[in-house]
């Protein structure tokens, strides 16, 4: 173990390198650029590929090509660039291409408050593409989790043959904290077909992705973003082919929800008031729960480390116990929809929203809100 004092962005890059990332294509955008700077320094001298491309569209598409050629590929961006990458992400879902996209969120829409932190890209990360699709979304709340979750993102990408999004934010990206770097990380390699008879786009068990041939290995692989059969042949007419394909890709993620979904629950066993949060906001939540407990108020929280697919069971459990759940977000409220869906029949739900100006949600604000809610 190597104990270092680094920013979340640096931790993302170190996590990616530890996970064997050997291809990075990116376009400068604050507050994510430090990830690119570090990859630009490290990849060329480690035998990997770093390329600064003409735009974010080129970045995501270069990742797709590199992944099919056998690379572990990543890019990092922020809101505007993330918007430009959506079509490419949809293609990666449809063709089951493993890759990792890190979005260091800033206040939008549009140019918004360029570089000020926000948590407004949650729904876009989940639903930003057209059509029926689902991809895993992970959310670190500290530089340590940036490191750990980027490694996890590569693991999921390789194991499930899927693009994975990591949602960081400016506070985490530019905040510096102590990180324990792992000595060595072993990421499972994607499964390759043994013969050309194994379909690269079909598997009996939807939970298991089909094997992925590598370009140049002689499989004459047909990769297409159009609806295709098990061997990649386009079928843009039949109901069966389309439904089976998109349903299998959908199920691949949803039926593996148990392994993808990750969260931390603190103090929920005896809590009378609960919080659900993710990312940097979860840090203020943890602090406010500590303060409330010291004051004798039994508070607890759930910190989501996976934002999609989400398992609402732990939230239901929390909801059954507490008098109210507070959902603080650095946005006008997106995660709160999940919490309402899961818990509105059991308890009262309060959204706490704040975004802009580089203002975090302070622990004090949450403590005050919790007191107010409980006194009602």
């Amino acid at each position, binding site marked *: 173990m190597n104990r270092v004092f680094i920013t979340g962005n640096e931790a993302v890059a170190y996590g990616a390198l530890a996970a064997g990332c050997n291809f990075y*294509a990116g376009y400068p955008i604050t507050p994510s650029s430090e990830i690119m700077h570090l990859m630009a*320094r490290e990849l060329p001298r480690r035998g990997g590929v770093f390329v600064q491309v003409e735009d974010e569209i080129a970045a995501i598409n270069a990742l797709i090509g590199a992944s099919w050629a056998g*690379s572990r590929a990543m890019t990092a961006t922020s809101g505007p660039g993330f918007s430009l990458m959506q079509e490419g992400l949809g293609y990666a879902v449809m063709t089951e291409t493993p890759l990792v996209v890190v979005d260091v969120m800033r206040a939008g829409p549009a140019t918004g408050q360029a570089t000020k932190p926000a948590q407004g890209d949650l729904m876009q990360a989940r639903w930003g593409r057209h059509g029926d699709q689902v991809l895993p979304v992970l959310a670190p709340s500290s530089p340590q989790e940036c490191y750990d979750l980027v490694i996890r993102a590569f693991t999921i990408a390789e194991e499930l043959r899927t693009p994975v999004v990591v949602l960081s934010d400016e506070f985490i990206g530019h905040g510096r904290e102590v990180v324990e770097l792992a000595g060595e990380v072993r990421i499972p390699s994607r499964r390759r077909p043994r013969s050309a008879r194994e379909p690269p786009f079909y598997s009996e068990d939807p939970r298991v992705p089909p094997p992925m041939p590598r*370009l140049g290995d002689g499989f004459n692989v*047909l990769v297409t973003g159009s609806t295709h059969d098990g061997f990649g042949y386009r079928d843009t007419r039949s109901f069966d082919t389309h439904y089976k394909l998109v349903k299998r890709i959908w199920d691949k993620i949803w039926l593996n929800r148990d392994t993808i979904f990750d969260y931390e629950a603190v103090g929920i066993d005896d809590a009378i008031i609960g919080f659900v949060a993710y990312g940097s906001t979860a840090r203020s939540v943890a602090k406010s729960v500590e303060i409330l407990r010291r004051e004798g108020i039994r508070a607890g929280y759930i910190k989501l480390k996976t934002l999609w697919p989400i398992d609402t069971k732990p939230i239901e459990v929390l909801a059954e116990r507490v008098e109210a759940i507070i959902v603080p977000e650095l946005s006008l409220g997106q995660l709160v929809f999940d919490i309402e869906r899961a818990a509105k029949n059991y308890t009262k739900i309060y959204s706490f929203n704040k975004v802009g100006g580089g203002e975090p949600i302070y622990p004090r604000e949450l403590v005050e809100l919790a007191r107010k809610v409980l006194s009602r």
Partner: protein
Amino acid sequence: MKKRHFSQKYLRIETLPTLFCPGCFNGVVINALSKALEEEGVASLRGYVFVSGIGCSSWIPSPYILADSLHVLHGRAVAVAMGVKLANPKLEVIVIGGDGDLASIGISHLIHAARRNLDIVVIMVNNLVYGMTRGQQSPTTPRGLETTTTPYGSFEYPIDMCRVLRETNANYVARWTIAHFFQLKDSIREALFRLRRGFRYIEVVAPCTTYVARRLGLKPSSILRDLLKNSKRVEEIRRGDTIGEDSIVVGIFKSEDKPGYIELYQDYSMRARGVQSG
């Protein structure tokens, strides 16, 4: 036993006949490419990767060519090709696409790949319109042509990609029409087997038989005659010459042998290895 056509070893026979319109010149492009490969003694396309975007000519490699192929998003073939080539420089990467795909939505990738002298071959089949979406104006539509989006005749100035790319760092830039079959085939051989490195661009003027020829009331045979008649060799054009809007400048605009992006990147990596981390 019936002798197989030489091109069959490069094609996915089970996908034939193609879905192209009757008389479509895409077949000429497949033929020229096959002939070039045949003449170079290529037995199988293992190690070749074809990347194409969206449009009629993007269907040439996918599904018809028996090789690895990526049929990608509209306009993004060159960007994907870049990822493939950088990730595994041993692969021979060929992009085939139309004027809508490469000169309109994908033009920035095309120009930047040329700027980098990226080691790929791009064959742009210029059919002068958006064929697949039913004949709208494209950036290469000649002025005066009636299309579905210029029903009174196109009035916009078109783009000449060969002149644009000549000014970049591309190693090879050529244009032929489908009436120049042998020159086209030789250009493909030159790009793939002689030059072998850097950005190599070959444009094929292949007017859409459905949305250009039929609208003009022309038969494919008369199109071929017109193409030959209107072609002007690039080496015969002198500075200051005015070129009529009906003329198609053909020939080899540029042929150089500078190191491509891959070699430059490898040199750069070697330099990086000499530097200790900060």
